[in-house]
């Protein structure tokens, strides 16, 4: 296994694959965050919107992101875009649900207190809504980043020809190099752990920490 990794490093492939996987995860995840969180916060704020969207969400929710692979390839061909699309699909709904739930569980007293001090709607969003939902969002981001990392590996096995997922299938197809397969898996594990540690550092920001120290 060590030999396998050394081989890959020598050819410069390892770094290339790691970068390729991280690149896709970053884009898929960031795009999902940009779309899902504002939409989710809005839906959660308006109860009617939530009732309107709930059936669609409930139908889409049990569909594995991997079930989108054929459609991803149909729309985007084999390549980065297909993988990014799959990661986006895997992250969007969990983030949307997190955001909806985060808004709905804001205690009414915080919103009333904010309004009582004469905040305009934009100020209310920025000074009450946003800090109140942050802890729940961070938990959701953390879980979702984990999902993104799971999805990228699977997506790369089918929809692209680079990245750590590709490394694993390719190592097996090209002569049963199981040392490389295991090396790939270990790397995936380590990088996944580092991503989790990275996003967990958000939880240590002082003004975010209130919900962890209380009940």
């Amino acid at each position, binding site marked *: 296994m060590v030999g396998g990794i050394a081989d890959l490093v020598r050819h410069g492939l390892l770094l290339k694959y790691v970068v390729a996987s991280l690149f896709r995860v970053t884009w898929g995840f960031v795009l999902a965050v940009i779309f899902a969180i504002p939409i989710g916060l809005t839906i959660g704020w308006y109860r009617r919107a939530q009732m309107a969207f709930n059936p669609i969400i409930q139908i889409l929710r049990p569909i594995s992101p991997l079930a989108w692979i054929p459609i991803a390839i149909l729309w985007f061909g084999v390549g980065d875009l297909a993988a990014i699309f799959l990661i986006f699909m895997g992250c969007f709904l969990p983030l949307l649900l997190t955001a909806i739930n985060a808004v709905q569980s804001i205690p009414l007293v*915080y919103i009333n*207190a904010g309004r*009582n*001090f004469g905040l305009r709607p934009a100020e209310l969003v920025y000074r009450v809504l946003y800090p109140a939902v942050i802890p729940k969002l961070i938990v959701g981001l953390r879980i979702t980043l984990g999902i993104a990392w799971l999805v990228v590996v699977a997506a790369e096995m089918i929809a692209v020809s680079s990245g750590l997922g590709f490394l694993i299938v390719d190592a097996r197809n090209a002569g049963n190099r199981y040392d490389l397969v295991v090396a790939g898996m270990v790397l995936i594990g380590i990088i996944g752990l580092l991503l989790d540690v990275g996003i967990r550092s958000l939880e240590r920001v002082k003004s975010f*920490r*209130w919900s962890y120290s209380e009940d």
Partner: protein
Amino acid sequence: MPLMETLVKPVALKTKLCAERVDMVFHRDTKTTEVLNDINLEVSDGEFVCLLGPSGCGKSTLLSIMAGFLTPTSGHIRIDGEVVRGPDPRRIFVFQERGVFPWLTVEGNIGFGLFRLPRPEREQRIAYYVKMVGLQGFEKTYPPELSGGMKQRLEVARALAVNPDMLFLDEPFGALDSITRLIMRGELLRIWEAERKTIIFVTHDIDEAVQLADRVVVMSARPASVQQIVSIDIPHPRDISSPRYLELRDGIFKQIGLAHRV
């Protein structure tokens, strides 16, 4: 002396808040709950009024309507002659200790409503109210690290910092232990005597009402209406073993129908 009287009296009797035929009915699914029934009440400027009534009768609902968080089914509240249409920073609602923002420090909470002030003035006010409620040394502390009583004082300080002319307090000391509660009552009276805000204070504790209020508004069980208004004509600080205090307190006990059952 007569001149003084004519000067003082009209000011003291100016009506601050006026509830006119306020009804409130909640509809939830198919169930309707009639909570308030024809509430009429006048509160003078600078007066300390306690709303007293059994649990679930609608005290919090009435207070939320007065503060503009809820719209009554019919009737209206007037403050300074204007019909209340929503919350307003000139009158602050204190939600027990639950309303302090856990993501802000003590300073951040007290300064929450002062965002339109220039920085030096804001900091000066924050420091003043930190001191007033005895939270010096905790300026940078977050609420989860404060005790219940400290959070309560923090919320009162946040309310006072914007210099409102009315305070709505909904069982503010209900969750505190009896010693802290006594101290907090003293503090509130001290603040009230110094700043002369109009205070409407909800409680279901008869002793608390008689110790604090100028007038006690006794409410009936749901749907609540004003059953009786008792003026507490004892100057502060009140001697809670004086015959007049006991007489007033027992009168209210009787009024609520608890006189011989306790």
